[in-house]
């Protein structure tokens, strides 16, 4: 990873039995395929919607279109181009990291965000897999806190066994703290 580490300051001195991944991690490369497939499906739906709108709403009511089919074609080209290229960009800006005391997530192509979830605030952790993800050997990790939008914290494209390992690891911290 050529990017600088996420954290500018030194880590806390809190010692913990949990293994630490200290480098920032990218998602599994297969997630790009998953995003492309779902993007292409949306693009297809979008094209049909625009096409039907042109056919049944714009053409009969306004008759302003010089080249019939041009708006639909333009919308389709744009949608399919985005569906193919956007996942690459999204993948490039996605970084996650699990530290002894916190989970860090950095993402966003246009609107950047960097979320920090202290591990002592994690309520529970889910892994989720859709049929498409299973086929690509992927899984999502969803982290819940008591915060209002706690469920927003999701790491989408992890290798399935990584997701399971992380889920168990994050759950283990709670046990450690329960004893002290």
């Amino acid at each position, binding site marked *: 990873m050529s990017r600088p580490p996420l*954290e*500018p*300051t030194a880590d*806390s001195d*809190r010692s913990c039995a949990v293994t630490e991944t200290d480098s920032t991690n990218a998602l599994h490369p297969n997630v790009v395929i998953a995003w492309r497939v779902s993007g292409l499906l949306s693009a297809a739906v979008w094209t049909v919607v625009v096409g039907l709108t042109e056919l049944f709403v714009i053409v009969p009511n306004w008759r302003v279109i010089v080249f019939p089919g041009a708006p639909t074609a333009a919308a389709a080209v744009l949608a399919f181009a985005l569906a193919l290229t956007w996942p690459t960009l999204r993948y490039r800006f996605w970084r996650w990291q699990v530290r002894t*005391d*916190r989970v860090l997530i950095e993402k*966003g192509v*246009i*609107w*950047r*965000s*960097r*979320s*920090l*979830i*202290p*591990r*002592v*605030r994690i309520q529970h952790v889910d892994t989720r897999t859709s049929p498409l993800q299973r086929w690509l050997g992927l899984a999502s990790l969803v982290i819940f*806190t*008591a*915060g*209002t*939008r*706690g469920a927003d*914290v999701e790491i989408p494209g992890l290798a399935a066994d990584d997701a399971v390992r992380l889920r168990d690891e994050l759950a283990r911290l*709670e046990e450690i*703290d*329960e004893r002290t």
Partner: protein
Amino acid sequence: MSGPDPTGWRRLHPVTPLFRSLQLLYGYAIGVLAASLSVGLSLAFIIGFGVLIAGWAVLSYLRFSYRVDEEGLVVKHGVLMRQRRVIPKSRIQNVDLRSGLLQQLFGVATARIETAGGGGSEASLHVVGHEEGVRLRNALVGRFSDFAAAPVAGESEAEARSRLDTSERQVGLLDLVIAGATSNRAGVLVGALLGLDYVFGVVPTDWLLRRVMPPELLAPETAANALVEAAGRDLSAFLVGLAALTIFFGVAGWGLSILMSVVRYFGFTLRRIGGELQVSYGLFTRREKGLRRSRVQNVQIEEPILRRWLGLATVKVQTAGYGPELKADERMEVLAPIAKRREMAAYVQEVFPDLDPSSIDWRPSHPRARRRMFLRRAAVIVLVVAVLSIISLHALLLLLALAPAWLLAHAHYRHLGHARSGSFVLTREGLWTRRSYIVPVRKIQALHFRQTPFQRRLRIGTLTVETAGNPLDWHAPRTIDLGLDYGRELQAKLGTEVTATGLVF
């Protein structure tokens, strides 16, 4: 009331079936009305169905019972589907009593019990006697966890409670009038009145205009039309009419705002008994709410511009109990509808006794924030001018508005900031209504540092401090436009501090 039986199970107040069937009949009556217009129903059918509803209300009353034990509140109910729900005391965020006009007449109230999570209320006891409601509140949020208040041998609960340190604050009628006069709501109401007049002509503006303008100038329709007509013919009459209307709508909007404030917060009392906060207010609908201060997620100090000038503010608290299904103005609890700036510290300390207000040292956002505040406004102005100048080049004069926009941007910048004080984080933002938040570090759930494309170009960003309970992102503790490195460092530092507080809920 059914006497407290040995097992502790209690019924709701005996007038419950009445209220329940009134509630059901209200919907039924509308249905009947609609149906009888089209089909024509026989009287026997209407009465028969009404009796059926009343019967159902009685049956569900008989099947509803609850009790308070060491665990918490247990509720059994259901006519066909029987349900039993246990709400542990340690999970209860607040107990709210609410009684409308009719309920006040019967001396009863609806008790709602809220826990963290979930959309709405966890349990709603509709209706209980008022005294019973107070007993429930005391049992569920009052004494619990105040070891000082545990009754020693031979002591009654009331005596035990009297040992706790207490305080009481009231808000008088005059202050409520000031609260209504200084809320930004007056402006919204003026807009609403104007709209109502324009669409329905319900506001007596015609009558008003007939007093101040020559009758031959008046158009038959709404006041707005009358004025537009008059403008072309008689300028002085137009100006007089405009002034009259402005004063009328201003006074009416303001009056309404004052009336609403007085009705809503009439007889406002804040009482603290040990760690329990009790708030009661309302003229027609009386609300009595109880919550533990240890459950408060954050405190919000709201200062609409008029109040800021007068040194006044509203203080609200956020608990995790108010879910997104509640109405917007019910999601936070009011601690003081209006308070003077010098009282503010005292109010906040009722909730956070370990906060030292004198140690709060506000730090401004990054100076480049000014540029963003200005560019945001300038972009709108330039866009409007560009569109208008297609019609007429005189529109270019509107570019002069950039000067006040620059001043506004500077004013806006002065209201952005954040502060640290002991184990608290404070944030504030807002020009027209400034909102300041006070968040205990131990209540922080997550920290997000976000950047819009504009912020990225200026190397600044917004740090959002997420706690439980704030459903809206833009009415939540966040500090706008921190420098990139500083913001990230603050985020990391707060993260470390949260970890140090350990597992708390």
